[in-house]
């Protein structure tokens, strides 16, 4: 990955991609959202644990790094979600059934995506993009919740010029305990 500063045009293009994605997800247009995903997508929400603080690392930033708390796909731990296109398709299919009870009535979500930072580009033109989000969740009969987190994405160039497909997403949730009604959302 190269790490040169993204051009203003590129930054604009990518920000627009994220706004469009957020509009689709909050608008419950999951089928349209799926079209933004690469067929080889990996969609992951790592578990977030409370590891021992290593005293030997004291004084260094690494001592309290977020990475230490994550149980992701390559860890020996237990991710909350670890999914491919097949799983996402199953979720989307389910969302449009009346007996998907945890979403009937569906939740009302609104997310603000910000801090969109293009961190690099590989030889095939895939971009590594990190961003942050706040998502407000309300569902009839239930309390409201705030989901906060970070997305660590890889956007691969699509067929058409300027198009991008989501190839990798790791969602780092900033939670002390999982007290949300569901983590089955598309975050």
């Amino acid at each position, binding site marked *: 990955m190269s790490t040169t500063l993204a051009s203003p045009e590129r930054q604009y293009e990518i920000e627009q991609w994220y706004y469009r994605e957020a509009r689709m997800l909050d608008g419950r247009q999951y089928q349209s959202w799926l079209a933004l995903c690469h067929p080889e997508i990996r969609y992951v*929400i790592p*578990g977030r*644990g*409370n*590891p*021992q*603080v290593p005293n030997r690392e004291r004084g260094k930033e690494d001592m309290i790094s977020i990475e230490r708390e994550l*149980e992701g*796909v390559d*860890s*020996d*731990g*237990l*991710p*909350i*979600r*670890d*999914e*491919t296109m*097949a*799983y996402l398709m*199953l*979720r989307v299919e*389910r969302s449009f*059934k009346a*007996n*998907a*009870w*945890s979403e009937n009535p569906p939740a009302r979500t609104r997310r603000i995506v910000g801090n969109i930072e293009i961190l690099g580009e590989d030889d095939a033109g895939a971009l590594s993009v990190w961003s942050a989000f706040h998502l407000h969740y309300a569902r009839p*009969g*239930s309390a409201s919740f705030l989901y906060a987190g970070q997305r660590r994405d890889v956007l691969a160039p699509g067929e058409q010029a300027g198009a991008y497909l989501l190839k990798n997403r790791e969602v780092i949730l900033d939670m002390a*305990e*999982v*007290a*949300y*009604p*569901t*983590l*089955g*959302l598309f975050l």
Partner: protein
Amino acid sequence: MPIRVHDVVNHDASLVSRKAWSDPHLYELEKRGIFGHAWLFLAHTSQLPNLGDFVQAYMCETPIIVTHGNDGNIHALINSCSHRGLPVCRADRGNAKSFVCPYHNWNYSVEGSLQAIPQEQHLEGRTDRSLLGLKRVPRVEQWNGMIFGSFDEEIEPLDDYLGDMRWYLDAFFGRFPKGIEFIGSPQRWVIDANWKLPVENQLGDVNHGPFLHAAVIPPEANAEVFELGRSVVTAPGHGATFRLMPEGAPLEQVAWGFEGMASLLAPEVHDYLREVQARAIESVGPLRSRMKGLTYGVFPNLSFLWSNTAFKVSHPRGPGKVEYWSWSVVPADAPDAFKRILRGNHTAFFGPGGILEQEDSEAWTQQRIGSEIDFADDRPYYYGLGLNEEKPDPELPGLVGVTANEFYARNFFLRWRDALAAVEDEA
């Protein structure tokens, strides 16, 4: 006047009051009568391979540290300092030389004894440290790597407590030459529900599947449960559900893992699972090799979801809240890459974001709402489906019924009622 236990569950437990699910006084009785006198699951030895390893656990609401002591033994200690009560361990799991309390740095060994009181260097007197170790869970025993603890010093041995559930659990464990392994930390999530409903769900309520999960579970899978499903109660509060596949059924139809999508994605995992099933007649015998498991329960709050290989514990957090823990379990002898794939069989479908289990969390939350409403106390919940239709079986230990028979739940509530009644008049 507090509610009387015998008014909550009727003589054959075909009726169970809504109060059983919501009343704070009954919850206090549950803590003493059930959680004070049962074997409670703590951890699996695969989580504690090295000296000094520890994991956190709960016994009801009491925080426990489970450690692999330098003496080679497993210890279960209440995570609370003898000085002012702070937890002495904050990490979920790890390896420790000792536990140091944050407040005044009292220092405890991983076996729980108090090793140092730093303040003493400025004092003349010496405190008897032998009485001030972390409080130990008085009974800790293991079966097949499963570590249990009990607050009841007089409780029967774990082997007797598990009884014939060992035979049913071994139908799975015994398939793998090195047994099973727990991976990582459990998924833990908080649900606004009573702890007993997740328990009941896994103890024998496989018949909610075709209904609650109709959006995801295909009708063929449900048909197999209706036709070949068995529900077993080995002792009140313990239960197992599975399909008993016909003799000579193709390996793929019986083998664990073939129902999940994860196995569809990797042919080498297919081969591994088929191999395991091919050996099952030798490893667990002809009858148990035909068992294709669904869900199990061990009284009071341990569940085993064979189909997606998770062990679960339903930790009460008051009458209307539960902290649910769910560990992925994999064959210990499988290559690491396979373990990660098999882990997906659990994480995609179960847990707080699980495609299936999000519906369960929803149902359990909604049940709490029904259990807390006014003006319906004269309408207890109906537990009478299949009353007295269960029978002993020539081959399978315990009482056996079809999966629609709710005898697993009636038996649970009979044991629950007696356990609470035994303490309700204690001062």
